[in-house]
């Protein structure tokens, strides 16, 4: 467990007075506060560090102990054990209006091991015990394959050791985030639970490429059907379909099959399109008779005979 330099975190020197500490803390808190840096895990970690540094340096007793032991923090563990046996219940100021800290984003689980080894568990709390607080929001990532999100389905997730049964709507996109109200952290003193935010990470193991609600694929077409036209059966995402090929279809030509693409998110029964690019297959291992016929065909094309 490493020593944490709280002065460095708040960009202060060791002689900083209380007003300097408060000023530095406020400045950095405004910069890294999660409300001002949504979806930013780096800022979130930094904000927790800033809060912890302020917790220590703005409390005269804690600061004295920290300054005394500093890098020799291991001795503080023994002193802490002695202190626990003598300590009476502490009272904490209400955070709002006292300038001592923030009312949210801070629970006993946010302290580092270093802090807890020096000061013990966070007994009591800076919150008024009668005030109810909303629980923290939780974030989770769900890894799925493209096949999984083709249909709406239910899935059980384990978040914070709790089973949550979710309905995953068809058509969710890679990187999309959905909010599940009330499934975040528990509220404090009977306050409402926070929300759970799930971000989808979708891999593609299929031969289809997805762009929004449309799917794209290359499909082989034999030379004869390409030239003469005809009926062909092709693979779609969820089955097969028969379609007509126009005569003289060129290599690389594209065909759109309306409604055979990917489901549109939250619009049941609505689908994007499937765009097929024909890859004309030149025959191989042709027989002598086929060769003769091709030679005759080439003469007809060259000389009109």
């Amino acid at each position: 467990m490493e020593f944490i330099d709280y002065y460095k975190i708040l960009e202060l020197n060791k002689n900083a007075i209380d007003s300097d500490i408060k000023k530095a803390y406020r400045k950095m808190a405004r910069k890294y506060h999660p409300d001002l840096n949504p979806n930013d895990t780096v800022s979130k970690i930094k904000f927790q560090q800033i809060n912890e540094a302020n917790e220590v340096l703005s409390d005269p007793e804690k600061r004295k102990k920290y300054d005394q032991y500093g890098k020799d923090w291991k001795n503080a563990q023994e002193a802490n054990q002695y202190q626990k046996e003598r300590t009476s219940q502490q009272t904490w100021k209400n955070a709002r209006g006292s300038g001592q800290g923030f009312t949210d984003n801070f629970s006993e689980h946010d302290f580092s091991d270093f802090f807890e080894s020096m000061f013990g568990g966070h007994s009591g709390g800076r919150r008024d015990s009668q005030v109810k607080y909303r629980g923290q929001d939780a974030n989770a990532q769900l890894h799925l394959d493209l096949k999984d999100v083709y249909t709406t389905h239910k899935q059980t997730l384990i978040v914070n050791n709790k089973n949550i049964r979710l309905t995953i709507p068809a058509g969710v996109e890679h990187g999309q985030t959905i909010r599940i109200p009330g499934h975040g952290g528990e509220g404090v003193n009977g306050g409402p639970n926070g929300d759970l935010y799930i971000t989808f990470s979708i891999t593609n193991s299929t031969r289809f490429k997805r762009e929004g609600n449309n799917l794209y694929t290359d499909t082989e077409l034999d030379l004869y059907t390409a030239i003469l036209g005809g009926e062909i059966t092709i693979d779609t995402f969820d089955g097969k379909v028969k379609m007509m090929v126009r005569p003289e279809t060129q290599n690389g030509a594209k065909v759109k099959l309306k409604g055979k693409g990917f489901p549109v998110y939250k619009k049941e029964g609505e689908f994007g399109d499937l765009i097929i690019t024909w890859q004309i297959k030149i025959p191989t291992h042709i027989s002598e008779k086929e060769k003769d016929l091709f030679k005759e065909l080439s003469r007809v094309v060259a000389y009109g005979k």
Partner: protein
Amino acid sequence: MENEQLIPIEQFCEYYQVEFAFIHSLSEFGLVEIASIEEKEYLHHEQIKDIEKLIRLHYDLEINLEGIDVISHLLQKVESMRIELNDLKNKLRFYES
């Protein structure tokens, strides 16, 4: 709006220990919507999460109402850009694959 989804402003202010005038000021800035029913004022429960954020900005970060108004607008822009960025990344994945 259904009544069970409406929270009386007085109850909300007591619960969160904020001033009545603060909520009214937010309404004047267009940041929250107050419903008036039979001379009593209410907040819709779907706004609670956003109002909590505004409370933190004002009371914890000491940002004034004008600042909160600007920040709300900028955060909306940031969210739009995040969604747009995600769409563009998905498009790029399509061409890289």
